[in-house]
C-alpha cells in the first residue's frame, strides 16, 4: 500500500477510534469522580441518564464560542500553539502497543521516540504563554518550561531503569519481557511494578503528574494565582484543543506507564491468542485505573509552590532515580 495512504489511515484510526473516545470517557470520569469526591452529584441531565453526554455538550458549546485573539498577541504563534500541544500528545499514541501485533508503528526505539515527542507539547504551552501578550500567560508559560526541564529528567531516568531490566527500547519488547520474565523459576509472570520497579513506577507517576501540570503540580495554570496561566486568553475551539490535549496527554502518559510498569496489554494467565483479542481492553483498563489515580490526586491535594516543585525534582526524584538505576543495573548483572 501507498505509504502516505497507510499513514493517514493509521492516524485517523488511532485518533478517532482510540484517543477521542477515551478522552471523552476520562473527561466524563473526571466530572463524575470529582463530584463524588466532593459529595456532589455531578452532571445529571445531558444525554438523559447520568449526564453521560456532558463532555460532548461542553465540546459543542466551546466550538460555538468566538475565537478571540488579543490585540497585542503574536497572532500566528498564538494560533499555532494549540496544534503543537495536540501534535506532541497525539504522536505518542503511534508507538503504544495495544496488543501483540497491534501498534500503529512498531519502532525499535519506541520509548526514545515517545519521550522525545511527549515534551513537544510543552513547547506549545510556552508558545501560548509567550504569544498571548498577557503577563499571567507569560508567567504560566515560563513556569511550564521550568517544570518541563525539571521533570523530564526523572521521567526519563525512571524509564531508563525499565529499559535496563528489559534490555530493549521497543515498547512491545518491554511488554514481552514482562510477559516472559521468570522469578526464581516459579512460572509466575508478573509485571515490572511487582518485580523490582516499584520505585521507578512511583517516580514515573510523580513526574508524569508534573508533565501533565495537574494538581499538585499545576503551577502553569494556577487558577488562584494566574487566573488561568497560559490559557487565560484562549477561548472557543482553541481552548477546547488545549483542554482535549490535556486529557489526551493524561491518557497517553497513563498508557505509557501501564506499558512500562503494569505489563501493558499483557495479563498473567492469558496466552498469546487471547491477548490478541483482549489486549486493547486490558491496556485500556490499566490506563483508566491510572487516570483514576491522577483524578483522585487532583481533587484531594493542594498545589505546591514553584520552588518546592523544583526542589522536589532536583533534590529527591533525580537522585532517587539515579540510585534506582544503579540498583537495577546491579541486579541485572547479578541475576
Amino acid at each position, binding site marked *: 500500500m501507498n505509504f502516505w495512504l497507510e499513514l493517514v489511515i493509521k492516524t485517523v484510526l488511532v485518533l478517532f477510534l482510540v484517543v477521542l473516545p477515551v478522552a471523552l470517557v476520562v473527561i466524563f470520569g473526571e466530572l463524575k469522580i470529582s463530584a463524588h469526591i*466532593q*459529595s*456532589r452529584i455531578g452532571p445529571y441531565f445531558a444525554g438523559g441518564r447520568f449526564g453521560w453526554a456532558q463532555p460532548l455538550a461542553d465540546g459543542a458549546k466551546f466550538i460555538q464560542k468566538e475565537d478571540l485573539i488579543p490585540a*497585542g498577541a503574536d497572532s500566528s504563534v498564538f494560533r499555532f500553539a494549540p496544534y503543537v500541544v495536540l501534535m506532541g500528545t497525539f504522536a505518542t499514541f503511534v508507538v503504544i502497543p495495544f496488543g501483540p501485533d497491534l501498534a500503529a508503528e512498531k519502532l525499535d526505539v519506541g520509548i526514545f521516540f515517545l519521550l522525545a515527542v511527549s515534551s513537544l507539547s510543552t513547547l506549545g504551552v510556552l508558545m501560548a504563554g509567550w504569544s498571548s501578550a498577557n*503577563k499571567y500567560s*507569560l508567567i504560566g508559560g515560563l513556569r511550564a518550561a521550568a517544570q518541563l526541564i525539571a521533570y523530564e529528567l526523572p521521567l526519563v531516568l525512571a524509564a531508563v531503569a525499565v529499559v535496563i531490566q528489559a534490555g530493549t527500547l521497543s515498547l512491545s519488547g518491554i511488554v514481552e519481557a514482562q510477559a516472559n520474565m521468570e522469578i526464581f523459576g516459579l512460572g509466575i509472570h508478573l509485571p515490572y511494578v511487582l518485580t523490582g520497579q516499584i520505585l521507578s513506577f512511583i517516580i514515573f507517576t510523580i513526574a508524569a503528574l508534573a508533565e501533565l501540570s495537574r494538581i499538585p503540580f*499545576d503551577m502553569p495554570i494556577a487558577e*488562584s494565582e494566574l487566573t488561568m496561566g497560559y490559557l487565560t486568553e484562549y477561548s472557543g475551539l482553541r481552548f477546547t484543543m488545549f483542554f482535549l490535549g490535556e486529557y489526551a496527554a493524561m491518557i497517553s502518559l497513563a498508557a505509557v506507564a501501564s506499558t512500562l510498569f503494569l505489563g501493558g496489554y499483557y495479563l498473567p494467565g492469558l496466552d498469546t491468542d487471547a491477548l490478541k483479542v483482549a489486549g486493547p481492553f486490558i491496556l485500556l483498563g490499566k490506563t483508566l485505573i491510572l487516570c483514576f489515580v491522577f483524578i483522585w490526586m487532583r481533587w484531594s491535594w493542594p498545589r505546591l*509552590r514553584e520552588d518546592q516543585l523544583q526542589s522536589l525534582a532536583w533534590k529527591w526524584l533525580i537522585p532517587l532515580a539515579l540510585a534506582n538505576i544503579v540498583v537495577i543495573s546491579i541486579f541485572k548483572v547479578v541475576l
Partner: protein
Amino acid sequence: MTDVDARAAMHLSDASVSVELETQGMTLNIGPQHPSTHGVLRLVAKVEGERVTSVQPVIGYMHRGYEKLSEVRTYAQITALVNRIDWVSGFANEIPWIRAVEKLMEIEVPERAQWIRLILSEMTRISSHLLFMSSYPLELGAATPLMYALREREYVMDLIESVTGGRFHPNFNRVGGVKPVAGGGSTQKKVSQDLPAGFFQGTREAMDRVDSVMDELDELVTGNEMIRARTIGVGVIPPEKAIEFGLSGPNARASGVDFDLRRDGEPYLPYDQVDFDVITEQTGDSFARYLVRKEEIRQAVRIVRQAIDTIKPGPLQAKVPRVLKVPKGQAYVRTENPKGEMGFYLISEGGRIPYRVKIRSASFCNLSILPWVLEGALVPDLVAIMGSLDFVLGDVDR
C-alpha cells in the same frame, strides 16, 4: 509600566542585543477581577520573576458610602445597612451598631434578647470561619474542602434563617432587643415563642455536624504536608507589627497578641457567663492564622452549646419609645466580630437620625498590612498570605 515598556519586555528579541542581558521588573496588575482577591481588591504588584518587590493595594471599588448614608437614615433603617458591611457575618455587624444606640439611650436589654444575640453572633462566627476554611484551601489549589465546609455551613445558615428570616442579611436586631415574632402581638408579653419550634434540637444537631466536619477538615487540610509546606513560615507577622498595623481578631491572635473583646473588652453580650478559650498562636504565619480560625470554630460551637442550655424564657424587648429619638451625645462600641474588631462611633445631635457615624471595620485595618507583609513574597505566596488574612471587600470599602 507603560505600554511601550511592556512591548519591549515581551519582544526582547526585537531589541538590539546588548552585551549584558538586561532584565527588568514587571508590573503585575492583580484584580479588581481576579479569582482570589475576595471581591474587588486591586493589587499593583511589582515583580521580579516570581518575587514580589512591592505591592500597592487599591481599594474603593466596593465603596457604597454607608457612613454618609447613615446621616440620612433613621436608627432602625441603619441596621439594614450595617448588615451589608461584612456580608458573610451580617448578624455580628448589627451588634456594635445597636449597642452604640442603646448605650446613648441608656437602655437595658432583656436577658433573653442578649442570649439570642449571643447565639446568633457565634453562629455567624462559625459560618464566617467555615467560609474561610473552604476558600483558603481553594486558594492553595485544593478544591474539595470547599464543598465539605460549605455543606455543613448550610445547616448553620438554615438555623440563622429560621430565626431571623434572612440567611445573609438578618436585620434582626432592634434597639432594646430583637425583632418580635410576626403576628405575635405585644412584644413584651411574648415570652417563649420567639425562637422557632425545634430550634434547640436543630442547633444541637448542627453543632454536632460542624464538629464532625472539623474533624474531617483536620484530616484533609490541617495534617496535609503540602498545605503545611505552603503556609508554615509564609507571611510571618510579628506581634509588634500586628499591633502597629492595627490588626485584630484571629489575625492578631495568630501573632501572639492575646486580646479578645469578648473577654477583655467592655462587656456587650453575656460572654462572661459562658466558658470558652481565647485561641492564640505564637508563630504569626499563615498556618497559625488558619489554626486560630479552626479552633475558634470549635470554641464557638462550645459557646453555642452552653448558651442554648442557659437561655431562659423572658421578654425580648425593653421599653423603647415608638419614635426613636436618641439623646445628644457620643458613643463608641466595639465588638469581636469574626473578622476582628468592629466598632461604631456614633455622634447624635438628638433627633431621629444620627449626626455622624464612623465605622471601624476589621478587614480595612487587616488589609493595611498587605504592602508590608507581601514585600519579598513569591507570587504563589501572595495568594496564600492574602487568603490567610481573610478579609471581605465589603468590610474594607463600606
